[in-house]
């Protein structure tokens, strides 16, 4: 099977986007194999190191994606694109 490419549009969701993934995380909930990872964005000067405020989603395990498209349908910002 060819590689699955999953892209997140970070202008819509993430540390600079409209949506903070910590409030939404719909993609995490619907993805049976847990392809997505919610994590603090790298390279930010956080004011409080113990309580970082910049978060984003990374599709970290694309090889286990089943191409069910549940995440694409669930994302309120239409921020997820999948191709192969």
């Amino acid at each position: 099977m060819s590689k699955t490419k999953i892209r997140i549009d970070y202008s819509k969701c993430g540390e600079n986007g409209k949506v903070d993934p910590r409030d939404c995380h719909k993609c995490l909930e619907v993805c049976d194999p847990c392809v997505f990872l919610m994590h603090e964005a790298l390279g930010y000067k956080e004011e409080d190191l113990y309580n970082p405020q910049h978060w984003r989603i990374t599709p970290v395990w694309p090889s286990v994606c089943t191409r069910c498209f549940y995440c694409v349908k669930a994302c309120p910002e239409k921020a997820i694109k999948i191709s192969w």
Partner: protein
Amino acid sequence: MCDWCMKHGAGKKWYMNAKNYSDQLAKDLNLEDYLTEQWMNFETVFIRKIMGLSSIGLGYKLKMPIIGRVIRWVVERMIHKEETKKRNPMRADGHFGQVIPLEDGKIILSELAAEPIIENYCMCRWMQRGKKEAVCINFGILSEIIEKLPRFIPKNRVVRIDREEAMQRLEEHNKKGYIASVWFQPVPYICAICSCESPECGGLRLRNNFDLNVVYKAEYIIQLDQDKCEGCKACVSMCQFSAIRYIPSIDRVIIDYDKCFGCGICRHACKNDALRLIPREEYPGFDGKY
């Protein structure tokens, strides 16, 4: 007993050696700064680059000819790294664990774990499923470190618990179907008992999907008493490893022993006492297969 028992068990299972839980060991290994650094950044462990490569798309990377084999070797070495001075907290070096049955977990919590004991939000479920559930039990200096990190601390609830409560909580999680596991963090210091699910758990992910030895199977394996099984199927849905299957023609379940991690969760579902755990070494075909 596995290699880690030989090295760190002092004649017992590695997680039954009291020394591995001691504050003195944490001090000797200078773990306060190390674990603080690690826990502040834990959610980024899979996306940080190690020697130019992150874990993003690890499944594809491991399949690359030659390079894939090199990556596997590097990652395995990192996970099991014992040289204190060369360890990097941002990569979770030396952090690996083993599945344990409820009974062993209770012994750890009643006799071995260093205080204070806390119960905090599971990181894996938070970063992979967006769920906050307080099921991770931590000990000793790690408890004091996690208490400073607001995202892991349940609101409106007591975070510090005593040994009795900790045992009770572990039992509740276990009966719900969560797999108990105990962790070196970093080896040989032990400071956590987790109650995991797959595929949310990062450790089980690496083991189940990529065959990396981050989590070892338990020192035990399940044994089915075929005569006692009435084929009610209750155990099937409990097993997180798909090791139990119901076969209609014989009206009982069968066990795929190769898949069994020895967590003992299925036992909670059986009203006929048909499932019990036996030491792995008593099962000739599976002795030494962790």
